[in-house]
């Protein structure tokens, strides 16, 4: 009974203190807005760059040809005019002729961004075309620009389509079935779903979500432990007849509450910003229906419990807020490392891996965002282990607070 009253007193005090600590509150909650906002900004930039109908300025250069104006039929309208028509007919493509005698001129135009892509025909292209000899075309683009290679591939695809039409016609005229010269006909089939393509584009979202669990309650976790030592209030606290675990548990409840609110807000803001129709249309966004968001929340809530518990245990060993902050910022590498290793290694996730806190959360969150249903056993196992680890950390913090080293060294 007395312990319950004491626990309530700790929770009430820490809640009051945290609510009035505007800087910590803003820092915790701003993250929830900042993370998804930065990501949405990046994705909108990608969307602009990867729009298949994005404007494309194509320069055509043929040595010996006068420049200026829209490109009309080439010298002999009966020979290659349809190539230019084909390119001009692409959505949002503007074709213009470039003055010059060599590829370098076209390269300069691309570098100066006068055009996005340039196509250089050889000087006697019409003659070679008419003589059924291959016509050399040089595609000039800047792959260092985010959309350079993709724009070039649009032009390349259009040329390939035109080339196939001409070559098929030539074969038919000579009595050869076009299919007889095809050794293979490759068809591609992408097995990814819209959700899985979105998750590929949003590989960083799991990291943002995991970090929300670590950042939301961090300041409170520090203030409630290292802060007590720094302001010399720990001794005043420990003279009360309350076991260390009650003090640690009360502080942990409040820090965890903030971490969970931060996770929920990050999820809500992500669901709103990343499900904009423009992003979804390009498979860049993440449609987070309520059910999926709830699943993610259920996975991340125990992580928030663990994150604040381990932060309190680490921070309790620091003598000042600043010292604790330095140590805990290194702890943030934990979710980052899990994300990076899983992204760049070929590790095949096993059931056991799913049971390791942080690592398992990264696996489950990544899977959910790819549209995979998490196994109930993996979810329950991970949550159980995570909550047990959190309880162990809270108990250890309680023991540490009551350790006479904390008083003797103050």
């Amino acid at each position: 009974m007395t312990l319950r009253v004491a626990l309530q007193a700790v929770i009430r005090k820490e809640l009051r203190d945290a609510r009035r600590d505007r800087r910590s509150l803003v820092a915790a909650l701003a993250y929830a807005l900042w993370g998804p906002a930065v990501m949405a900004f990046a994705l909108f930039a990608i969307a602009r760059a990867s729009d298949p109908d994005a404007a494309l300025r194509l320069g055509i250069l043929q040595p010996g040809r006068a420049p200026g104006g829209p490109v009309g039929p080439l010298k002999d309208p009966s020979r290659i005019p349809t190539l230019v028509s084909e390119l001009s007919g692409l959505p949002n493509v503007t074709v213009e002729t470039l003055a010059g005698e060599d590829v370098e001129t076209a390269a300069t135009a691309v570098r100066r961004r006068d055009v996005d892509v340039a196509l250089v025909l050889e000087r006697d292209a019409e003659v070679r075309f008419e003589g059924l000899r291959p016509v050399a075309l040089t595609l000039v683009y800047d792959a260092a620009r985010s959309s350079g290679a993709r724009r070039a591939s649009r032009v390349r695809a259009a040329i390939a389509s035109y080339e196939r039409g001409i070559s098929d016609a030539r074969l038919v005229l000579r009595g050869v079935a076009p299919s007889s010269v095809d050794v293979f006909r490759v068809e591609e089939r992408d097995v990814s779903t819209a959700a899985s393509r979105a998750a590929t584009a949003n590989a960083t979202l799991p990291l943002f979500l995991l970090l929300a669990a670590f950042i939301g309650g961090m300041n409170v976790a520090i203030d409630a432990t290292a802060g007590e030592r720094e302001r010399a209030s720990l001794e005043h606290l420990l003279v009360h007849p309350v076991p260390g675990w009650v003090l640690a548990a009360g502080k942990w409840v409040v820090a965890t509450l903030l971490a969970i609110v931060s996770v929920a807000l990050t999820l809500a803001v992500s669901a709103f910003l990343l499900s904009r129709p423009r992003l979804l249309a390009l498979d860049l966004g993440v449609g987070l229906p309520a059910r999926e968001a709830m699943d993610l929340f259920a996975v991340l809530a125990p992580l928030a419990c663990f994150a604040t518990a381990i932060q309190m245990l680490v921070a309790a060993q620091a003598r000042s807020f600043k010292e604790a902050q330095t140590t805990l910022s290194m702890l943030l590498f934990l979710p980052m490392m899990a994300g990076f290793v899983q992204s760049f290694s070929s590790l095949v996730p096993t059931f056991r891996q799913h049971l390791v806190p942080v690592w398992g959360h990264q696996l489950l969150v990544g899977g959910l965002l790819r549209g995979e249903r998490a196994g109930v056993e993996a979810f329950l196992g991970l949550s159980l282990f995570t909550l047990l680890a959190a309880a162990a950390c809270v108990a250890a913090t309680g023991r540490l607070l009551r350790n006479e080293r904390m008083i003797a060294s103050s």
Partner: protein
Amino acid sequence: MIEVNGLSKSFGATVAVNEMTFTARDGAVTGVLGPNGSGKTTTLRILAGLLAPRGGSVTVDGIDVAKDPRGAQAKLGVLPDGAGLYGRLTPREHLEYSGGLQGLRGADLEARVSAALRATGLESLADRRAQGFSLGERRRVALARTLVHEPVNLLLDEPTNGLDVPGARAVRKTLRALAGAGRCVVMSSHVMSEVATLCDQVVVVARGRVVAEGSPRDLLERTGKTDLEDAFVALLGTEEGLGK
């Protein structure tokens, strides 16, 4: 009543408290007097159940502090050195927190908080945040927090430290009243005049040992001095470390 018997405590090779023995009676103010580093704060921390003794024992109203520190703490009101306040909380909230940790709640808690605020003259500051309080105001809040659960035994580490003259007089009056009401008050102090006027019994400690024990009058008679400060120096046998 607090009974200290053969108490010892070391930190590594440093002996902080060495075979210390004394008794603090109910209804009396017992002053622990000693130069810096003599072991006063360590002794009070052991009495408060914050540090475990290496040897000897301490009992608070018969409860062995080493065996049942929480039980002993329930019988104690402890004022450690410094104020240790939370800047974002008001004095009233500090007292509610402390009372809650002592198991108080509801109307009982509310009444005791009001009484403690009144006893320490903090009523006008009761609902202002502690951030920006003067040293004296902070110390008064800390003292009020010590008294909120109306403990039978009080351990006070330099209770008037940082207070102005009226503030210190008010605290001395409060402590005298508490002893008059039958409480056991143990305090450490550097201020000789305070010890002379306030304490019924003085325990003089040096290098972790009790070098003399008795009423201020006893100590004067024993040393043949007329001034307690001179008596204190005589009992220590040296002025080293006294800043004189």
